């Protein structure tokens, strides 16, 4: 199995920010996202990935909650990611080593967790100026395993984006879709600048919105017998209480998956949201967001602290369960 790597999440962010900020003007206060070889039209492919087999990297929760046919049925997960970059890397999500690009990994992963969900793809290289389309029926989940970096000098600015990220922020604001955002791989507190002096503006724009979930990564799945720790690279919830209340962690076990990064935490949570959306088909995205956040576990984490783990480790089985029953 190849060594774990953090290639595409970081590379995308860094290259995007440099490209975006060469022409940047303070007067504009725009964050111009990169479109390398831009094609204004978005590439959106609808793929229903049906792989009904619990994988060894999945939380025992998921395997235990596995039942016939319903995982994400009637819901849609849209993966906004890099689907056109030639850069590929190897990993193992379904029992065999594969080599593919970042967006294909995240969409495959979400599809393995919610195997009956419809998986749509939007290439952020070509889709910057296109709103993310939503399915007309059923829960919509948007997975964003990337960031929009800006210089720390602008950390107090309000940013505007192209149509793609603007639509995502608006969906989170209006509760129209759940936005699962990878927390970032700088090993810092959310909302602070990294070693390069940059920060993720998209994280800031999504903060406090009703259907935002930030996804941090644990080094493994946690159990009460063997509590998990934060992956060294994963951003932490930080001191801001609003961010803490929207922050979840899940295991990204690179020893099993061959890949690592909060990019691969977000699709797991996206899959969880889709599974919930198929069970509670009339629930709003806000209700499902809150269900995931409020049923997170802290007893499976080593030295739990909200500043590190936010709400805690996402628990699909508890999110599916009733509060009381008689």
């Amino acid at each position, binding site marked *: 199995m190849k060594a774990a790597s953090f290639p595409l999440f970081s590379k995308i962010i860094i290259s995007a920010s440099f490209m975006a900020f060469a022409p940047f003007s303070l007067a504009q206060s725009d964050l111009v996202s990169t479109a390398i070889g831009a094609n204004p039209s978005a590439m959106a492919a609808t793929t229903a990935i049906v792989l009904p087999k619990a994988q060894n990297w999945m939380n025992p929760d998921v395997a235990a*909650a*596995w*039942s016939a046919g*319903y*995982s994400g049925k009637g819901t849609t997960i849209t993966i906004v990611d890099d689907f056109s970059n030639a850069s590929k890397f190897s990993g193992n999500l379904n029992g065999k080593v594969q080599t593919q690009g970042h967006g294909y990994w995240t969409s495959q992963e979400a599809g393995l967790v919610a195997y009956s969900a419809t998986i749509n793809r939007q290439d952020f290289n070509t889709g910057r100026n296109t709103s993310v389309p939503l399915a007309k029926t059923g829960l919509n989940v948007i997975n964003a395993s990337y960031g929009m970096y800006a210089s720390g000098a602008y950390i107090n600015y309000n940013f505007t984006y192209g149509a793609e990220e603007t639509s995502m922020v608006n969906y989170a604001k209006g509760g129209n879709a759940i936005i699962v955002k990878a927390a970032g791989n700088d090993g810092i507190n959310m909302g602070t600048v990294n070693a390069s002096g940059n920060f993720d503006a998209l994280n800031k724009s999504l903060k406090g919105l009703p259907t935002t979930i930030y996804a941090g990564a644990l080094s493994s799945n946690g159990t009460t017998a063997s509590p998990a720790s934060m992956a060294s690279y994963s951003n932490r919830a930080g001191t801001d209480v609003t961010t803490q209340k929207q922050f979840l962690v899940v295991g990204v076990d690179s020893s099993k998956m061959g890949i690592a990064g909060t990019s691969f935490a977000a699709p797991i949570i996206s899959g969880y949201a889709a*599974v*919930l959306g*198929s*069970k*509670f*088909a009339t*629930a709003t995205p806000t*209700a*499902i967001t*809150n*269900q995931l956040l*409020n*049923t997170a*576990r802290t*007893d499976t984490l080593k030295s739990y602290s909200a500043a590190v783990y936010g709400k805690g480790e996402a628990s699909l*089985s*508890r*999110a*599916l*369960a*009733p*509060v*009381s*029953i*008689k």
Partner: protein
Amino acid sequence: MRGIKTTLINNSLCNTRNKIYKLLIYIVLWMIPSFSAHGFDFIEKTHVIEIRQGSELSEKVNFYTVGGFEAANGSFVSYTPWYINHWTDTRVSFMTQITETLGIIWGVSSGEVGDKYRIYPSLKIGVAYFENLSKNSTLSFKATTILGGNLTEYPCIADYGDVGGVQMVNCRMAASQLPPSETLNYLFNDRPYNQTMVTLEYKLYF
């Protein structure tokens, strides 16, 4: 609607059960004069052929007397109080010889009750026929049927909070990925195993 359907099913099964009880009473009343007149004869010609505590349906439910699931707050919800029985289904069957070759099979079972299920009492009736075809061959025929004895499972009422509200659900599947309304399709509603049996046996000795 599901609640109404469950009530209608319960009422229908209650009616069947009442009919079985009435049939049993008629049989007993018929047997009393027979007994009086031929009491010893009847007893001499009646043999116990089965005493059994527990049944396939009983075992099916018994599987759920252990286990459970975690509620949304992490507390453990055990299946045990719902599926443990207060009395295990017990069957006694007899055969009463009518002629040299013909017998009547008859029996009753007590049924079984738990908090979330019921196995209804039943009546078993049948015939048995035996013939010596030749010096070294025999033919036997047996046919039995069981009236009543169905297994019915009752749903739970679960509160899923803001995400799902209060819903009727299959107790065993309340924490599954299935929508609560779908889980009701998996409630036990079984007939007795081997409800009707017919056996024909030919033996040749050499």
